[in-house]
């Protein structure tokens, strides 16, 4: 049994990642919206490897996720088909498609507790008898039934396939290919057909229709009970879709986020961690200890404990200022993700998103972008067409500030009062809409109509939110620390040789003449070329007046996408689009900065 490749597969949001975590003890992110898993997660398990695949509604190669899932399923030694008991009528189509592939199979019926709570009975034994494979009832988030599933996998075997697949057996024998390849070729998979040297089948619709009929008949046989509608969460879920409730609820969510992040964490918590803990206690001790060893006035002092020192300024930004804010933001984001609120917000804003050439689903990457733009750029894969992914990627790169950047900007603007903060936020919204309108009119292709699964509203589990925030914050520190170190090291070395002053003088026409900022702001823009949050941190201590603060904050926010984002944009969208996005964000940042300077700086 060693060395086996086991794949978890099924529809979006049925609990595959939760089951992956429960089986392996590893951590794949779990959320309550469809499309959480965008890339494969794998972990050693039971002497082999367990792979968590992205949720798909089928294996027709409609998008990248379906191709990724298909390629794993073609190689898998066994598959755990995951279905959610409350939505079994929907999930059975995918289970039957996996069954039809002829791969050794076990079915995991997840969320059995929720099905029971809703008054539904699911006859797992009848499903097992019909398919001829083990069916195990589980509650993945609580670990119930998981040991049983592990044992059942030893009895995994090919399921009884639909009678509509006789041609597949014949094709597999003729071409000496696996049954699973033959099934997908008959369903019209051009890529696999090309590899096998045959024309793709034209029977997709016939097979789908027969499979859907089989799924419906099976559902009638095994799902019993009408269940009790009208649960409080169902009513709340519906109210959130009505503009009269949905928009005030959105305003309330934003207000709570501002109070939590902007006031409580941004001022109180960070005031302590950065000002007292780091500034008064840790940094002076580090400085004294280092000066005793390296002496004052030389390069070591500048690099280690100077104004851009690695042990004082760099570590202070990262640990005292950014980490508390980034972690708190991820706690808030995790709450929103796990509650099931985001798909409802996407539905509510669907019509509004048409203004920027997108459908409501794009709301999810934009909200994720407020956490990390790189992560959000990856999540644009859940959008259906190339045009949507291009528009969303460009808008994320231009006008969506990440949590670390927001942390610093809030620190700059909050002391000036809500008027300047509102001015900044509204300007950013204006740029987002203007750029979105321009992209809608110029990016070729079509925008797919909204078709979005709405998961039930749930009260999030604190353990999952905490674990997810810790994993994401750890990822932030691992990714950001080298850039912060290299950036500050570069500035310390430039400052030491007098180069920084000369560079600032060289850039003075742009900083002072064009944007109305002090010449020293040039160092913020140099840092912003590496990471925008690092650039925003470079604005601290510049003693700007309120108008200049808004100009600098806006320009740095809209400035070039950070290096990790840019690399991902190159990978996802190709060099031509990446170059256009890079040039577009730079031009827009300088144009908006100039306009703001003209209006606000005396």
């Amino acid at each position, binding site marked *: 049994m060693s060395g086996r490749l086991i794949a978890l597969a099924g529809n979006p949001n049925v609990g595959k990642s939760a089951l992956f975590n429960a089986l392996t003890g590893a951590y794949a992110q779990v959320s309550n919206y469809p499309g959480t898993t965008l890339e494969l997660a794998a972990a050693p398990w039971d002497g082999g490897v367990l792979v968590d695949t992205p949720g798909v509604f089928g294996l027709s190669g409609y998008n990248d996720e379906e191709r990724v899932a298909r390629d794993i399923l073609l190689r898998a030694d066994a598959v755990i088909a995951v279905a959610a008991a409350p939505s079994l009528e*929907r999930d059975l189509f995918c289970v039957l498609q996996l069954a039809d592939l002829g791969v050794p199979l076990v079915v995991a019926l997840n969320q059995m507790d929720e099905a029971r709570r809703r008054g539904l009975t699911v006859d797992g034994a009848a499903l097992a008898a019909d398919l001829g494979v083990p069916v195990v009832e589980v509650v993945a988030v609580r670990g119930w039934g998981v040991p049983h599933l592990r044992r059942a996998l030893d009895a995994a075997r090919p399921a009884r396939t639909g009678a509509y697949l006789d041609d597949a057996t014949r094709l597999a024998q003729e071409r000496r290919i696996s049954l699973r390849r033959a099934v997908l070729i008959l369903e019209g998979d051009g890529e696999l057909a090309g590899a096998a040297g045959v024309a793709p089948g034209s029977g997709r*619709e016939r097979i*789908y*229709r027969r499979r859907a009929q089989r799924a*419906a008949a099976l559902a009638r046989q095994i799902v019993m009970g009408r269940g009790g509608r009208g649960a409080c969460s169902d009513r709340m*879920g519906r109210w959130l879709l009505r503009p009269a409730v949905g928009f005030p609820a959105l305003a309330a969510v934003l207000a709570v986020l501002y109070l939590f992040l902007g006031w409580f964490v941004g001022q109180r918590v960070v005031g302590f961690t950065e000002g007292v803990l780091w500034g008064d206690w840790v940094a002076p001790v580090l400085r004294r200890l280092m000066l005793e060893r390296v002496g004052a006035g030389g390069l070591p002092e500048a690099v280690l404990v100077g104004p851009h020192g690695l042990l004082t300024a760099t570590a202070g930004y990262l640990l005292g200022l950014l980490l508390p804010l980034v972690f708190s933001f991820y706690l808030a984001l995790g709450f929103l993700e796990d509650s099931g609120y985001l798909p409802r917000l996407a*539905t509510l804003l*669907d019509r509004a998103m048409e203004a920027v050439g997108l459908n409501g689903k794009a709301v999810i990457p934009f909200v994720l972008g407020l956490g990390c733009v790189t992560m959000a750029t990856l999540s644009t894969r859940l959008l259906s067409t190339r045009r949507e992914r291009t528009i969303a990627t460009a808008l994320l790169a231009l006008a969506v500030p990440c949590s670390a950047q927001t942390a610093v900007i809030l620190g700059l603007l909050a002391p000036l009062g809500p008027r300047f903060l509102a001015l900044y936020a509204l300007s950013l919204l204006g740029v987002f809409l203007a750029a979105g309108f321009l992209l809608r009119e110029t990016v070729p292709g079509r925008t797919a109509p909204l*078709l979005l699964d*709405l998961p039930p509203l749930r009260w999030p589990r604190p353990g999952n939110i905490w674990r997810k925030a810790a994993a994401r914050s750890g990822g932030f520190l691992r990714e950001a620390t080298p850039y912060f170190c290299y950036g500050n090291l570069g500035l310390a070395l430039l400052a030491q040789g007098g180069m920084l002053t000369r560079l600032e003088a060289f850039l003075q026409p742009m900083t002072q003449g064009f944007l109305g900022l002090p010449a020293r702001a040039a160092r913020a823009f140099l840092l912003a070329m590496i990471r925008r949050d690092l650039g925003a941190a470079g604005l601290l201590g510049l003693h700007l007046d309120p108008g200049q603060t808004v100009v600098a904050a806006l320009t740095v926010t809209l400035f070039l996408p950070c290096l990790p984002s840019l690399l991902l944009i190159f990978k996802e969208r190709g060099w031509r689009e990446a170059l256009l996005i890079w040039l577009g964000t730079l031009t827009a940042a300088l144009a908006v900065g100039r306009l703001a300077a003209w209006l606000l700086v005396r």
Partner: protein
Amino acid sequence: MRLCDVRRDQLVEVKAVDAAVRDLLLRLGIGEGCRLRCLERLPGGGPLVVSRGFWELAMDRELCRQVEVVPARGL
């Protein structure tokens, strides 16, 4: 009648789906004979939210226009 024309809380049965979106919707279990309830109609031509059992789905109005339905009696 088309799915985009149903009232809130109305229960309907799917009679036919236009060829352009038939495969897409069959994968979601929406095909001939399937019963759907309209839970919400967002104003201004916004999406419809329909349910099938406990599963809820937001569908663009244009997509709903491609689904032919007839009124169904309650379960």
